[in-house]
């Protein structure tokens, strides 16, 4: 078990390193950081001076090693736009993003798992079809459009909820719903198919043959098995959701790292974008790691090995 966890951690670290390298390369090849530093109206000579001054004329790989070396020591660089350490910029905003992500995730789980379970217990009934419709809509509704629809309806027409900002808990309701709804279809489908598969399994037939009460069959025997992959997917989805939260943050003007990333991309403020991409990758990798470990605890077959 400890060896298993150890292996996973090493894997996660390796993936993080490679991802940091690839994202650094992609971003540095896409835009020229020197132009951003020098300003849009700088002459080629001025840009060249900046390039030399910041060491941007050296091979990208050298720059990467320097950057990751500093990052590991806690120095995430300075944003030329804000003229502030990137660490402070992100530190001031990460909390909001995590709150949004957690609320959205809670909404997704509360919507997906009960519906998925009920749909599997009563397949091809109205409730199954409702669940299916909700999930088909969730997959097809662009989340920025869903967000705008809610703003128009609940914010502008009914005026129940504030339409932008992140000052009170009320500000988080619509963004969390918009973000979580997008994440729920895959969880719901996995719950439903998992439950259906388990309910058709031999050991559920054994449980029924023993004369167990329906409640015990569904929740003790079936859900306990069906939920294992859902829990894993849940953690992965959480990581994935944070990576896509920037659109919702943009729509609702929530001052999180996603909104910061969008603004920094518009300003070609590469050092900030770089760190946010790395941060989101690391969060995602950690989430898959947590998913693996929890999976191992939930499944006695993996736990034993």
């Amino acid at each position, binding site marked *: 078990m400890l060896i298993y966890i150890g292996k996973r951690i090493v894997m996660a670290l390796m993936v993080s390193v490679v991802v940091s390298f690839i994202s650094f390369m992609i971003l540095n090849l896409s835009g020229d950081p020197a132009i951003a530093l020098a300003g849009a109206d700088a002459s080629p000579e001025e840009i060249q001076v900046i390039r030399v001054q910041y060491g941007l004329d050296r091979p990208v790989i050298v720059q990467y090693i320097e950057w990751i070396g500093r990052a590991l020591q806690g120095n995430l660089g300075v944003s030329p736009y804000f003229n502030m350490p990137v660490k402070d910029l992100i530190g001031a905003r990460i909390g909001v993003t995590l709150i949004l992500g957690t609320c959205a995730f809670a909404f997704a789980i509360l919507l997906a798992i009960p519906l998925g379970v009920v749909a599997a217990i009563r397949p091809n009934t109205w409730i199954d079809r409702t669940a299916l419709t909700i999930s088909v809509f969730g997959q097809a509704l662009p989340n920025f459009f869903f967000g705008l629809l809610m703003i128009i309806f609940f914010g502008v027409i009914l005026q129940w909820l504030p339409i932008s900002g992140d000052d009170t808990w009320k500000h988080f309701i619509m963004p969390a719903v918009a973000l979580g709804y997008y994440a729920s279809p895959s969880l719901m489908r996995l719950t439903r198919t998992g439950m259906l598969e388990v309910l058709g399994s031999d050991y559920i037939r*054994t449980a029924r043959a023993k004369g167990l009460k329906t409640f015990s069959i569904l929740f003790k025997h079936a859900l306990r098995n069906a939920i294992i992959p859902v829990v894993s997917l849940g953690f992965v989805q959480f990581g994935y959701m944070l990576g896509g939260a920037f659109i919702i943050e943009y729509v609702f003007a929530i001052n999180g790292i996603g909104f910061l990333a969008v603004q920094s991309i518009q300003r070609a403020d590469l050092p900030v974008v770089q760190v946010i991409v790395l941060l989101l990758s690391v969060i995602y990798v950690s989430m898959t790691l947590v998913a693996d470990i929890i999976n191992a605890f939930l499944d006695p077959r993996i736990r034993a090995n």
Partner: protein
Amino acid sequence: MSALLEVKGLRVDIPLEAGILHAVRGVDIVVERGKTLALVGESGCGKSLSVLSVMDLLPQKAKWRADKIFFDGKNLNDADTSPMANIRGSKIAMIFQEPMTSLNPCYTIGNQLEEALLTHKQVSRKDARDRAVFLLEKVGITAAASRLRQYPHQLSGGLRQRVMIAMGLMCGPPLLIADEPTTALDVTIQAQILALLAAIQKEFDMGMILITHDLGVVARIADHVNIMYCGQVVESGSAIDLFNNPLHPYTQGLLRCIPIPGKTAPGAHLGSIPGMVPTPIGQQVGCVFQNRCEYVHDPCRSSIVEATRISDGREYNCLLTPEVCRTNMSKGLPK
């Protein structure tokens, strides 16, 4: 005294894209107290579906009904609510074909054994555990107490089937149904499990339904035999009479397929039944065995072939008279 289980006119229908599959058509099952009934037939003949209907364990798609279903003198067709919930596990226990997947991978053996008793009887957890240990030892599992903490994946297939048997016995049921309990096991383990089942059945004086396609097993264990073919019982009778005096051409064909050690010469021609089992979709016209029967004649293709009763519990579904059938068997194949 009435039979332990008496089912008359059992039918199972399964709707498919191609039409309704009449998987079981008018099957009778009678189990006497303390006796073993064997259901014999090729795979897909409806023997498993028949007992699963009695247990009300069919998949949701499949629909079943019976003209008459009595267990222990009670009419189960009369009950308002699902009567099976109280009978399943406590009065009728069932063991399945696949020991590898029949136990829940997420719970310990002990948990799953105790649960079988705790659901039906008001006993303490400790009593349930003691009963589990007692039965695990009965089914020949060593270090029974420590096994309780193990998970199914830590046991071999043979051990898991023993656990399944112990689980079936937890409430001391008067009827045990074993659905091909040895098919998935190694040959040596098969013999052990069958011997165990026979011994347990005697010791606890249970009625038993044994489903199998192995006539050798039937000869050793069964008191009464139902031969099933394509959703019908084509012949039934006491094991001794049926083996000595098979009437239905299908039974005869099955028996010809078995080599007898010492009697069948090496290289001798073994019997086989040509043709394929028909798919029971649509309307049945004539005898169910007509397309594979050696002795088929015109009436077989049009008449409704009903069970002919020879004596109590001895029936066969064929237009030929018992005398003709016996002559056919002694003459061997017509070729």
